[in-house]
């Protein structure tokens, strides 16, 4: 039996605004508990919401970025439910008139092949506060700093066919949101979250089976794992003829236990009693507003990729990697602008740089190396002021300290020895103290040269100019100055 997996994704992204959606409280992450709150966002009686214009602006921008249509008239609705993280016991959201609808995003599938995922709608809403659950304590704590931070919810159609595709979709959305500066998309801080709806059916069937909603997923890795896990769970139930156990329900992904846990069944699910928010007048969006935002759209990842291929002659795969993170591409461009060769720069970035980034668990904007210093390092190697090997050492120090390459080379005395007299002296020393390899050489074992070069490098901490060293070495050996004439002593 061949099975087909059907996945739809709801993404919640916090919008990049200074203030909250309905009040002037800051949106900054990591403030003192309940510090970013005011009478409006903790829902004190008598307070009224004042809609932040930037929220609509960014939502329209998102809509345009994902090829959506924009409603000329939109409105806010109340979604009523009691939960301690929701100060008014309703969330101001959008029900039947979202700002954006009917869009799509294309996922690259190698050369000239894209997978188009339809987007049902994008609407704005307020975030809820945060509940802090303490182990072994008999209570839960509430922090309302997050309450009222503006969100967009991006709802896809059930167009995704595998957990991997779902992850690619979220990555593509995230990338565009960051390119267009709509959201910071910091999954680790919860500013990008996703819920997934998943069902499976026999391949070839048209009807959709009961879907399960997965919540509490906060990284790509967890998304992949949660979906695979749920896919498997459903498949087993179908295979064992227990399809009645696949119920319309919400399941929470428990990353520690590595499984999904049922939260609530459909029949006990809430009746949200949506109705138009009477405190906020209708939102009217005219053409001129939309056109104005259209003009503000910046380069998209795909556009940048093509530019990189055309302008810098990069390989498609390299260009793809570079543009998968806006900050990474920006960094690359600045290094090139500082005078480094594009191809060499790409090799550095996709090699040592990304490795160190991952190992240190930091993002590009946290990197200490200035772009101009990066370029300088590349050029120092090019000019053979240092060897590639030393370069890597210097790079690592730059990464950790942010110091300029020249300063590091100076401090550590890593500059290449090109002075002929100095090198000659070292070559002589090496030849004198390595009589056996020298003998080998004269006996025709030319590979002894390699060993002797190694010794020169060892003596100079790798700073000896390799070419000059080799020339000198060969020259000395050819003079037969070091022919082992004292051998008789040992006989």
């Amino acid at each position, binding site marked *: 039996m061949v099975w087909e997996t059907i996945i739809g994704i709801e993404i919640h992204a916090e919008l990049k605004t200074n203030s909250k959606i309905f009040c002037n409280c800051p949106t900054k992450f990591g403030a003192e508990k*309940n510090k970013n709150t005011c009478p409006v966002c903790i829902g004190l009686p008598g307070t009224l919401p004042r809609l932040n*214009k930037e929220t*609509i602006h960014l939502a329209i921008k998102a809509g345009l970025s994902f090829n959506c249509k924009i409603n000329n008239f939109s409105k806010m609705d109340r979604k009523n439910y009691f939960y301690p993280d929701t100060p008014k016991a309703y969330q101001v959201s959008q029900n039947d008139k979202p700002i954006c609808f009917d869009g799509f995003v294309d996922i690259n599938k190698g050369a000239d092949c894209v997978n188009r995922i339809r987007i049902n709608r994008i609407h704005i809403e307020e975030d809820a506060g945060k509940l802090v*659950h303490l182990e072994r*304590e008999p209570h839960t704590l509430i922090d309302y700093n997050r309450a009222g931070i503006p969100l967009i919810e991006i709802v896809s159609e059930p167009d995704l066919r595998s957990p991997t595709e779902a992850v690619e979709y979220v990555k593509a959305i995230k990338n565009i949101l960051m390119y267009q500066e709509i959201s910071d998309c910091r999954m680790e801080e919860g500013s990008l979250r996703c819920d997934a709806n998943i069902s499976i059916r026999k391949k070839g069937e048209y009807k959709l089976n009961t879907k399960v909603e997965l919540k509490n997923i906060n990284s790509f890795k967890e998304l992949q794992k949660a979906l695979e896990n749920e896919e498997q769970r459903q498949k087993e139930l179908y295979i064992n003829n227990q399809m009645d156990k696949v119920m319309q329900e919400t399941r929470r992904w428990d990353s520690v236990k590595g499984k999904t846990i*049922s939260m609530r069944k459909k029949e006990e699910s809430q009746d949200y009693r949506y109705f138009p928010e009477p405190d906020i007048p*209708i939102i*009217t969006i005219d053409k001129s507003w939309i056109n104005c935002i259209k003009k503000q759209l910046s380069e998209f990842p795909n556009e940048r990729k093509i530019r990189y291929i055309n302008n810098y002659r990069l390989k498609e795969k390299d260009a793809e990697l570079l543009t998968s993170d806006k900050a990474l591409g920006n960094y690359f461009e600045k290094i090139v602008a500082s005078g480094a060769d594009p191809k060499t720069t790409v090799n550095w970035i996709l090699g040592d740089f990304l490795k160190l980034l991952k190992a240190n668990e930091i993002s590009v904007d946290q990197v200490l190396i200035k772009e101009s210093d990066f370029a300088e390092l590349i050029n120092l190697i090019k000019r053979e002021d240092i060897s590639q090997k030393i370069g890597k050492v210097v790079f690592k120090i730059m990464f950790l300290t942010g110091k300029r390459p020249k300063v590091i080379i100076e401090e550590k005395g890593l500059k290449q020895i090109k002075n002929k007299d100095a090198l000659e002296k070292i070559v002589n020393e090496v030849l004198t103290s390595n009589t056996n390899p020298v003998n080998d050489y004269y006996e025709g074992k030319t590979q002894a040269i390699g060993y002797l070069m190694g010794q020169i490098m060892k003596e100079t901490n790798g700073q000896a100019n390799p070419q000059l060293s080799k020339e000198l070495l060969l020259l000395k050996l050819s003079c037969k100055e070091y022919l082992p004439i004292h051998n008789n002593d040992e006989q």
Partner: protein
Amino acid sequence: MKISEEEVKHIAQLAKLSFTEKEIIEFTKKFGHIVQFFNPANESETEYELMDIEMVKEKNEYRKDIVLSENNQEKLFRNTKNMENGLIKIPKIIEDE
């Protein structure tokens, strides 16, 4: 239109209210009268527009995206009976039943 006790219980649950069995009987009766009285199905059919005309006419004036935070948190939360180190304390919430 008749309202059943079950329906009254369901509505109460949504509204986070509860009634004793005795109250339910009495309330259902009274509520039934009220619902009967106000049932708009009693009113003649009307044509309608989806959006409130008045509301569309009025221009929504949005707030500028500016941060102002001069709040005195102590005053803001002085009505909160269960603060602990700047956090509000509530009975433990167990997410999965």
